[in-house]
């Protein structure tokens, strides 16, 4: 722990504790992203801080009895009544996070992001940049889903599945909206599958309320960057592509991407072979090699079937 980071934290901690009156030790540690031990070390530094001259009455006081009960009470710190302005890094980190919220939120909340950013800039005394963001899927869909999550109700989705090339109407209990690897998803309990499922937001064409209440399902499974790894049916496929097709490595969650003599070797997990067919057909002759080879043979056969449709038409 550098003293630099500690001073920065102390300058925010003092007005925070003054404002709180009595603050919970554990909660305060969490909000400043430090351990409780570190927070107590911070408080020990404050004992020796205060007005120049350093007379006992001039120094900050921390109530030791309260602290033993897990509560922080601070006095004699009127000279640090307000926090310091954001550093540029803090401001940029907060703003980018707010943009990500706006991307996924309902229109009302997106407007709240804009007005909050306006107020932050004003308090900061300088204008901060915020980028207008595009939204994930339609705003109506996101709003209906957030409302269903709040009501805890079962909804019927109209879902255009890419892999199967069909529309399905799953009944689900929505719990979360998530972004991962460049896409926004709904996480929900599927009644049909009796399991947690994720649905791409931009593939949900409609949300209808069934009027039924959702049941308690406990916490949804984690949907982090390795989520596909947990799919039992997922198999690893290795595709070598020409340099122009490098984009697939940033568009889809991949296990690895390496340069090869002719282009790139991308290894990815495939849960549904029909999805892989679509990808290979899309890439066309930018595909140089696929392992297992059978995946490529299947996709080529589909290309031939498709060409047959053109000869007839």
């Amino acid at each position, binding site marked *: 722990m550098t003293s630099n980071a500690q001073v920065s934290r102390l300058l925010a901690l003092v007005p925070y504790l003054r404002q709180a009156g009595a603050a919970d030790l554990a909660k305060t540690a969490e909000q400043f992203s430090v351990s409780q031990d570190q927070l107590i070390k911070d408080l020990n530094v404050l004992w020796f801080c205060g007005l120049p001259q350093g007379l006992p009455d001039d120094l900050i006081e921390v109530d030791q009895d309260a602290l033993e009960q897990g509560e922080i009470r601070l006095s004699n710190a009127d000279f640090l009544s307000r926090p310091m302005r954001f550093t540029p890094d803090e401001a940029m980190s907060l703003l980018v996070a707010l943009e990500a919220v706006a991307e996924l939120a309902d229109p009302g909340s997106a407007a709240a992001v804009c007005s909050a950013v306006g107020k932050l800039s004003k308090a900061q005394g300088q204008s901060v940049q915020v980028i207008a963001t595009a939204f994930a899927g339609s705003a109506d869909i996101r709003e209906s889903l957030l409302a269903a999550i709040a009501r805890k109700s079962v909804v019927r989705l109209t879902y255009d599945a890419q892999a199967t090339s069909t529309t399905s109407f799953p009944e689900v209990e929505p719990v979360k*909206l998530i972004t991962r690897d460049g896409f926004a998803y709904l996480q929900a309990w599927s009644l049909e599958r009796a399991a947690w499922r994720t649905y791409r937001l931009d593939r949900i064409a409609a949300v209808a309320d069934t009027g039924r209440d959702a049941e308690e399902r406990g916490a949804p499974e984690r949907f982090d960057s390795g989520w596909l790894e947990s799919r039992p049916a997922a198999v690893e496929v290795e595709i070598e592509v020409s340099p122009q097709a490098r984009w697939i490595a940033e568009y889809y969650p991949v296990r690895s991407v390496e340069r090869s003599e002719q282009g790139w070797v991308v290894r990815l997990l495939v849960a549904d072979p029909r999805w892989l067919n679509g990808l290979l057909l899309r890439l066309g*002759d930018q595909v140089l090699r696929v392992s297992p080879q059978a995946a490529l043979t299947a996709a080529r056969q589909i290309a031939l079937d498709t060409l047959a449709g053109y000869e007839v038409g």
Partner: protein
Amino acid sequence: MAARKSERIMNLAICLLMASRFLPKREIREAIEQYREIASDQSFDKMFERDKEELRQLGVPVLTGSNDVWHPEDIGYRISREDYELAPIDFDAAELAVLGIASQVWDTATQADQAKTALAKLRAAGAEPDPGRLAALTPSIGGKEEAFAPMWQAVLRRIPVEFGYHGKQRRLQPWVITHRLGAWYVYGFDLDAGEPRIYRLTRVESQVRFVGEPGSFPPQVVDSAELAARIEPAKPDAQAILAIRDHRAPVLRRRSEPVAAQAPAGFSAHRVEYASLGDFVGEVCAQGPDVIVLDPPELRQRVIDHLRRFAEAL
């Protein structure tokens, strides 16, 4: 040791914040116990200079100046409270909700801590961010790309950078770093092209090198509409008539409208708008035998060629 140093710098900050005039170094030395304890003038000078510099690095506006117009060489120091303090902010419930989510967005530890500190400051200023009904939102952004950390610093500190991109070396004054659904972009003035350019961080091929001093170029106000337009996919500028197999290819069907044109049995004809600069051929081919291009003939031919090359090349 670190605790002693934190203590000293905190006391220096409080002392300078309380000063109503520029305090000469000599007075600061007398006022703060840890400085009084130092016997040698030289050691004190060195320590004071370092401490003052550390405060500035933290963003504390330590001003240097003189109280005496006749003796401008008699300099002292103070912190302007007005420039130091975060002004009061009054957030409404909707704003507090979005701020409440914002602390959980970052996957990257460094930025997560920065965003959390910013929120702790807001709490210190009396605001109570609380996700409320937005708790169901879990946007997540990370900076997995190798180029992310150096580019973030370069934007923050206004340092020109050099990096490889599409097989070429680029030199850029990076103005803004931004993301769309988790994909990072850097936008700035390309020194070789002589105009603003945008680059996607995942496509940066080499290490990002700093090629200048911090503050090398002035802060730039970026037109957010123009930036968004550079990130957005190309707008539709062409139309195609497609035969879509019944009940299939819902994504294409959804953005189309039925038209009265001849289609094979089991298919119906649809008009779809597309961007000629985008990958519409690839999108159509991905549908396999569920979609056949009827018109325009050039698009039809390109799809046939694409499929032939794929089926025959291997």
